[in-house]
């Protein structure tokens, strides 16, 4: 009796020998490895720059604080007169940027694998008591042409290029044998067509998927020791699982098209068309649909509202703003006395103005976040239509550069901004001087990572979104193979 597993192994060995001899498997795997290395190099470069920026900001914040404390000490000891516009004892000055307080979103260990939105959504903000409209729209500097092009990261290699390499190996998996005539020879032996197909698939999928998963995993483990942590390792495993599922999807699609039984040329055309549709066209169309169904409020309107509010508030505090300003000629008034300080009336006015602007804009600004979240929810709901979207979303999420995490960050910033304002508001309005001890007790931004279980569940759902269509295709392939016409 011929044992199917034995036959499978035999076909696996034989096919490997054939592919080895005509060099196509080597070539494709080498191209894939080359692209992956290049993508990783890019990813690590970008991550290093981001991390360097974060370190710089942290150092800057600490250094500024040390300097400010030293200055405050000198002023309190009477060695120096306070500067009317940069007085460390003045809560209006410290709260408005003199303290150089940054809110920073940390870079995750998996970050080099996918740029995601990190080049367009900021991962740090300088927090002041001023209206969020003042700082929430800062962006990283990048050539817009290059933003339009996109980055060459691992996510790109997987989402766009991997399917094509898969096709190049398997678009004529069966059709070539049939056109060449060897399929008749094969099937005149006591073997099952599905066993043959399984063996042929395995020999192609194994090196390609190993290369696509092990290479990045190994490079990552060597270069990012912070990965050695049970949670991060689990995320890496999910990342790998996602790549494998995605690769299998395209392999099975190639099988399905082969089982359909047309010529190699037709197979190549059909596969390319399906790739164009699923990877190029569908995401672009979905993007249009999503932004039409859940439109973001008009930015023009935001600008108009901001201006109207600015006018109202300027009028409201016109008197405070035009108050007498004696501090340049008599800076000694600015010295704290018994914990109290004479906060310049004009600065108080400016604070109130910003406070009111922020309050009145809050709702409108919130709408932008809400709508972006609503868009993301729509994308999540319909991403199953294209595995490219599913994988893109999932890989960027695991790498910590997806829309969700940026929204989460903005929410934390929003909360912190309120805390910051609440800390300074009574001090500015009541004229409470900033003491040295205050620097250690004033609110500091602390990052809270997204819920780990939410991320894991999200990733698992997306894994299913790829595996279910894959299994459906497996079932259909089996049916079609059963009726496969050799002649």
């Amino acid at each position, binding site marked *: 009796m011929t044992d199917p597993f034995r036959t499978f192994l035999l076909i696996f060995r034989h096919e490997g020998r054939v592919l080895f001899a005509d060099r196509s498997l080597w070539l494709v795997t080498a191209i894939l490895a080359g692209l992956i290395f290049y993508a990783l190099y890019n990813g690590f470069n970008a991550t290093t720059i981001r991390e360097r920026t974060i370190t710089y900001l942290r150092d800057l914040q600490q250094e500024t604080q040390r300097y400010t404390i030293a200055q405050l000490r000198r002023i309190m000891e009477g060695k120096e007169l306070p500067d009317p516009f940069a007085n460390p004892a003045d809560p209006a000055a410290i709260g408005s940027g003199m303290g150089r307080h940054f809110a920073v979103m940390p870079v995750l260990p998996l970050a080099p694998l996918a740029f995601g939105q990190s080049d367009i959504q900021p991962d740090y903000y300088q927090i002041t008591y001023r209206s969020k409209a003042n700082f929430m729209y800062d962006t*990283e500097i990048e050539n817009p042409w290059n933003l339009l092009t996109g980055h060459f990261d691992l996510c790109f290699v997987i989402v766009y290029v991997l399917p094509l390499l898969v096709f190049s190996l398997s678009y004529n998996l069966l059709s070539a044998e049939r056109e060449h005539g060897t399929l008749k020879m094969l099937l005149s032996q006591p073997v099952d067509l599905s066993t043959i197909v399984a063996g042929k698939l395995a020999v192609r999928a194994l090196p390609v998927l190993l290369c696509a998963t092990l290479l990045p995993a190994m490079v990552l483990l060597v270069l990012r020791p912070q990965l050695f942590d049970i949670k991060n390792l689990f995320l890496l495993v999910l990342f790998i699982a996602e790549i494998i599922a995605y690769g299998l999807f395209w392999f099975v699609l190639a099988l399905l098209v082969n089982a359909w039984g047309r010529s190699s040329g037709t197979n190549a055309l059909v596969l390319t068309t399906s790739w164009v549709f699923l990877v190029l066209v569908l995401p672009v169309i979905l993007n249009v649909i999503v932004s039409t169904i859940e439109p973001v409020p008009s930015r023009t309107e935001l600008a108009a509202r901001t201006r109207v509010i600015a006018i109202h508030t300027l009028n409201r505090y016109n008197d405070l703003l035009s*108050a007498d300003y004696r501090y340049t000629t008599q800076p000694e008034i600015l010295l704290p006395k018994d914990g109290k300080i004479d906060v310049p009336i004009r600065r108080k006015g400016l604070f109130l103005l910003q406070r009111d602007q922020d309050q009145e804009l809050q709702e409108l600004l919130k709408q932008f976040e809400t709508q972006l979240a609503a*868009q993301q929810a729509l994308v999540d709901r319909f991403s199953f239509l294209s595995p490219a979207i599913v994988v893109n979303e999932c890989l960027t999420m695991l790498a910590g550069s997806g829309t969700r995490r940026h929204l989460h960050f903005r929410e934390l910033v929003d909360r912190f901004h309120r805390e910051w304002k609440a800390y300074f508001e009574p001090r500015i309005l009541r004229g409470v001087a900033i003491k040295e001890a205050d620097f250690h007790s004033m609110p500091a931004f602390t990052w809270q990572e997204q819920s780990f279980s939410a991320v894991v569940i999200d990733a698992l759902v997306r894994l299913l979104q790829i595996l279910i269509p894959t299994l459906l295709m497996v079932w259909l392939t089996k049916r079609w193979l059963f009726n496969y016409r050799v002649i």
Partner: protein
Amino acid sequence: MIRRIAWREFIEFIRDGRLPLVGGLFAVLLVVLLAVGWLQESNLNSERSAAQGMDYNDWLNQKNRHPHDAAHQGMHVFKPIPRLFLIDPGIDPFVGSTIWLRSHRQSEVKFRPAQDLTGLQRFGTLSAAWMLQILGPLFVIVLGFGALSGEREQGTLRQTLSLGVAPQQILWGKALALAGSLALLLLPALLLALTGAGSAIEQDRLDLLIRLILLGVGYALYLGIAIFVTLAVSAVAPSSRISLVLLIGLWIASVIVAPRIAADLSKAWHPNPTGVEFNTRLDNDLEHRYRKVWKEKLGTEKRWGPELPLNRWGEALKVDDHAGYEVTDEHFARLWDAFALQQQSQEWIGLAVPVLAIRGFSMGMAGTDFFHHREFAQAAERQRRLIQDTMSKDLIEHADPLGNQHFSYKAGSSLWASVPPFEYSPPKVGFALRHNKTSLFVLLAGLLTWIGIAHLAMPRSA
């Protein structure tokens, strides 16, 4: 003879259903895109011009207040959407649309549309340009991959050559058939675009028409390259299947993969700073310069103290501003030049990867490239400086003598009216052409090269 060959080929495209099916889908999608884009664009534009008008109105009608506070309110400036945005949105989704012109510092153009969108945006922006640049060549490949290899397999190529038809005639006949099919599909879209151009306001009409024609020329060159690449590969490939696989591989390598590598290369050749680096350097230079000019012009480095009382605030602002203009100009020019150089080096790579050249040329002609954006940003900055200078001058004249009462000075509507409204007319087509000489040349050179290669690839004899 060439027309005869082309006609036979064309009939074949129609009969085997490739042209009606794939092409029809392509043409319908293109027309729908144009129509939808048209609607969106006119909505956005009218909203922006209305907002611009209201903004100036509010500026004029603001209450009496200190000029520096008026400068704080500032003005909002909205970038008008170019008429041809609907054909090629270019970089516009990735640059801001609004500038808040305020005192103290050059503002960034804010509100990048891409920031308000999900990660899907990164897959591309659905537009006519996207379709022509990305899917156009694929369409040519689907029509033409078997043009010569297929005839060879059938033996009809030998037949034709044995009749004494020159290989060149066959090549041009096939090229004509492909070009004709494309023209047939693009015609409705072109007509729609021309109608749109005709409906534009009088003074823009000619400019728009020339831009459209140039766009047509650019895409003709680009798709021409695709046609001759397809024919060349089809001529040398041993079979239609290999021809198809080779062409699809080429398409993917040049349209999908190469642009990203080119972006990396251009960044390596002409690096640009990160946001933090840029701002730190700008801040340092500004501070350095401020100290210097304060010392020179005001006799002190210390900002505000007994040596420099508040009654010289206006004068000091003016000193600050003018020192700042130079430094900022220098920094922004360096940054923007780096961007421009990055783009230019990528357009040169367009010799090997034509999509890079047509992309630059197309957005240039559509008025959505970085050069047009830079023009706008500079015009906005000029307006900001105008406001700033007007306010500082008024402060020197009226507020400075008031000493500590400086901030109690309130200017009135006559001062506001002395600032003219922001009027921006986008650069004309001559500007666009000047900045896109390279890409036009690259496209032309690419086409000629590939015509030559296709000629060499043709079989000499039966």
